[in-house]
């Protein structure tokens, strides 16, 4: 009968276990974070460290079949089983911490992705470009720029040498067309006339050789030094940045 009673001093035991575990978990995740630096940025790992260690430790504690309140391995007679309620509480704590880990992770990648500038260019058959003769050479482009944008000039260029951007149309914010880019006449410039974080337009393409496929475009703010600060394509973002930008 004495064996089924909750062990004396179980609170202290659990407390000490969690405290030790937290310290151990912190060290482990720091090492993990360093090892996984290439895969996940450290700021994301640090946001998930604490809840993750709590989740693992409470899970380990809940999986313990017996407790040794005496603390000594030789004193095996004092071993006792934790109550069902205890085990359930520990499992629950583990679950809650796991959810906290997930929220921490998603929050961190979201915050990170919301500091990124990128574009998304989809080939489309835009009616507006039909006047240029070919229907297939058009890109519906969305620019997401997390920098001050009023007064900036955005340059749209073809990736291929024998293509050129004929026209830019259907912008979703007020923009002014500035015409060809003096540095490279295959590119067109537009100047957004209002502040934006994200806007779209359709770029009509032409080709010197007259082919009906396009290799794509690149977009970036003009830097006045005669070069473009090229924005990364959304599909080339890292996996966590892609998830984060959707949140």
């Amino acid at each position: 009968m004495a064996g089924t009673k909750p062990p004396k001093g179980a609170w202290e035991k659990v407390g000490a276990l969690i405290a030790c575990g937290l310290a151990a978990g912190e060290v482990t995740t720091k090492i993990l974070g360093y090892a996984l630096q290439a895969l996940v940025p450290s700021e994301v790992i640090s946001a998930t460290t604490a809840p993750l260690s709590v989740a693992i430790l409470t899970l380990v504690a809940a999986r313990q079949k017996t407790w040794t309140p005496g603390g000594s391995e030789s004193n095996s007679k004092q071993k006792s089983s934790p109550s069902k309620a205890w085990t359930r509480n520990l499992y629950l704590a583990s679950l809650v911490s796991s959810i906290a880990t997930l929220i921490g992770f998603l929050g961190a990648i979201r915050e990170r992705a919301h500091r990124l500038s990128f574009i998304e260019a989809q080939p489309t058959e835009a009616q507006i470009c039909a006047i240029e003769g070919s229907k297939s050479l058009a890109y519906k482009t969305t620019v997401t720029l997390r920098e001050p944008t009023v007064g900036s000039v955005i340059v749209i260029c073809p990736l291929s040498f024998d293509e050129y951007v004929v026209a830019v149309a259907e912008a979703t914010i007020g923009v002014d067309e500035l015409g060809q880019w003096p540095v490279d006449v295959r590119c067109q410039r537009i100047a957004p006339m209002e502040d934006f974080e994200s806007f779209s337009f359709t770029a009509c393409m032409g080709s010197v050789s007259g082919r009906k496929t396009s290799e794509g475009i690149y977009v970036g703010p003009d830097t006045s030094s005669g070069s473009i600060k090229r924005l990364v394509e959304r599909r080339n973002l890292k996996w966590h940045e892609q998830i984060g930008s959707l949140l």
Partner: protein
Amino acid sequence: MARTNWIFALASILIAAVSAEARIVQVTGKVVEYGSNEAVPYAYVQLLNKCSGEATEAAGGKHTDSQGDFSFAIETELEQVCVWVRTNRYMGIRKAVKVENKPSPNVALGKVFLKPLAAGALNLDGAVKHYQSLADVPDIQREFLAELLSANNSEQIEARYETDPALRLAIDRACRQGDVDCSRLGARDKEKTAPSQPMH
């Protein structure tokens, strides 16, 4: 040798002085829609001193007629001007144009193609000057303001309404006269002013 240099310097100063003299520049052209080639009536054509950067100044402007044609004379001493065409529903266009070095030069722009904005989007930059230029066609002016107030990106208009006294004046006057439907703007206005009233 020294004398030749002297004459040369004097001559170049003289040429510079002559070319810097203000001339009457005649600007003509027609504004049409890209794709359909249809005339864009009552667009606003303006001459700026330069196309980009800060401190762009307007030398003058005029709206196109009902056929999209424009023709106006402007006195300027600039050798290169920037033609800026704006409307509410189209993307604006800025085009640098060289002014010929003769007493009364012509700047014939031919067709100026405007590309449409995405459905529902509205261009607001320069709207006030455009509105003011339409004073000689009151019906069009009313339509213009009604178009502004029905925009999808109305939060942009609201922001401009708050910061641009000229736009505010124009809208307020039109609202008072009952020329345009100001219900959307008015509703927001009441919400805004109601909590601040006890402070007065």
